[in-house]
């Protein structure tokens, strides 16, 4: 049974086969042979999640929700390199009506609205346009939401609702130029093949300002890390908006509409809005906060080879490494603190594969004495924007970029 069917739920093939369904009900009390689990350290829980390999074109992923899929990249993937493999790249869908079949010969991308000429492009047409490539981080607006204090509803992601890929495709500008944007155009609105489960539910649509859409960097991608996109990451076409949160990176893109007025659809006006304040921060319970659509990403950095609670050896240099990204510009520096943020030392940055991608950093830390240490890394981007030392808070759980702390013990 495909999961686009909204009327379906209890009688799946798994249930008929028996044991798999029971195992999922038994959850964490199940014996070791049952299902691999992971613990996400969220205050107040629940912390247990299943590792799933049940999704097409996907390897081991953290199961946040089966339908529509929310699949998180296991954190250890980020320690392996700056490119997130397609089969472990996170997945996030809003509505459960997702086509499970895409025919490359019949698929069409429409460009319409406030243009001289309405177009219906085949994939062959698109592949014939000049090809561009770019490494860029795709990060969910709510990445790390599970660490918000106080907790907020929404997908309870740890740090794995992000990934970095080399995207290949065509410039959105080139496609818009083919159609000819008319004077007075204000925004460009994007839709995909996915649909609401309920007939009057708001179809997922996102818009960019016309100048942003024509900046020559926004891309219609047909390849990710040298291969076609996994269906769950948006096959056959996905919008790539370098430096901006993933809500704008519309998957299964099949409709581009040039607007001569601002888009006030639900997904622009109500959902995915943030406080118009530094760090998108507000106080719990605060009302009357002015909001704006979420937009550029701020810098972040993470330690990937040492976990909270790990033990290091006194007097022995411990290699530390991880990833950083600058957000809407490149990484200028990543600094390490081993005393909870009192003092900082520069780390060595890895190769620069493009300002919108992950950049590796590495250094060493030698604990001088036994005891507790709090390790922290802090990214400063090329515009001088630094990660804050206090966590932000907002009702939607968006734009976390606080300096993260990793407490360790030296013995």
């Amino acid at each position, binding site marked *: 049974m495909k999961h686009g069917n909204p009327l379906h739920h209890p009688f799946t093939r798994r249930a008929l086969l028996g044991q798999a369904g029971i195992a999922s009900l038994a959850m964490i009390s199940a014996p070791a042979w049952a299902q691999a689990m992971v613990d996400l350290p969220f205050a107040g829980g629940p912390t247990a999640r299943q590792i799933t390999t049940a999704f097409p074109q996907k390897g081991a992923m953290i199961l946040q929700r089966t339908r529509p899929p929310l699949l998180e990249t296991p954190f250890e993937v980020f320690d392996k390199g700056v490119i997130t493999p397609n089969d472990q790249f996170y997945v996030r869908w809003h509505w459960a009506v997702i086509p*499970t*079949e895409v025919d490359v010969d019949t698929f069409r991308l429409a460009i319409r609205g406030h243009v001289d000429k309405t177009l219906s492009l085949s994939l062959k047409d698109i592949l014939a346009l000049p090809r561009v490539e770019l490494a860029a981080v795709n990060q969910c607006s709510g990445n790390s939401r599970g660490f918000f204090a106080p907790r907020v509803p929404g997908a309870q992601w740890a740090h794995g609702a992000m990934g970095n890929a080399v995207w290949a495709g065509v410039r959105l500008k080139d496609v818009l130029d083919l159609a000819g944007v008319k004077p007075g155009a204000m925004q460009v609105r994007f839709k995909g093949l996915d649909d609401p489960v309920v007939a009057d539910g708001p179809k997922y649509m996102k818009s960019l300002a016309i100048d942003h859409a024509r900046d020559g960097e926004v891309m219609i991608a047909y390849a990710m890390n040298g291969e076609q996109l996994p269906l769950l990451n948006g096959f056959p076409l996905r919008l790539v908006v370098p430096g901006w949160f993933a809500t704008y990176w519309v998957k299964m893109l099949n409709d581009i509409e040039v607007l001569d007025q601002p888009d006030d659809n639900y997904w622009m006006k109500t959902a995915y809005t943030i406080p118009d304040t530094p760090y998108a921060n507000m106080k719990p319970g605060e009302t009357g906060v002015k909001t704006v659509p979420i937009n550029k990403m701020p810098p972040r950095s993470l330690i990937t080879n040492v976990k909270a609670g790990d033990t290091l050896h006194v007097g022995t240099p411990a290699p530390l490494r991880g990833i950083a990204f600058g957000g809407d510009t490149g990484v200028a520096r990543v600094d390490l603190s081993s005393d909870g943020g009192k003092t900082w030392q520069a780390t060595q940055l890895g190769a620069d594969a493009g300002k919108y991608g992950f950049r590796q950093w590495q250094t060493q830390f030698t604990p001088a004495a036994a005891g507790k240490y709090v390790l922290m890394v802090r990214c400063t981007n090329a515009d001088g924007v630094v990660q804050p030392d206090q966590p932000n808070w907002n009702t939607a759980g968006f734009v976390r970029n606080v300096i993260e702390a990793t407490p360790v013990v030296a013995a």
Partner: protein
Amino acid sequence: MFRNLLHSLFIATLCIVGLVLAPLPGRAEGPLVLKSVNVDLPDSDRMFPGAGADAINNNCLACHSAGMVLNQPPLTKAAWQAEVNKMIHAYKAPVDPNDVTAIVDYLSRTKGAP
């Protein structure tokens, strides 16, 4: 389990093939040939457990599987009421008006916060 094993073998094979064939990221390459895709997405048979779960099981599983809710943090009754209202008003969930109280009660009883 057998299916998982097959899947793992499939992935392992893909990885090996990928090592040989995949172009270096960031490097220009020949034209990409896109291939049609036809997949099955898994569904969930998970239900909300325990007493008083009929209303939530009958009204909420059409749009999303139960795991989404079961993975949420403890929330106050007012926060759960707001979530249910959002599903009805923003996302047009066809929830029977007579079931709303039972849904919110179930959530605040099983996943409540002070």
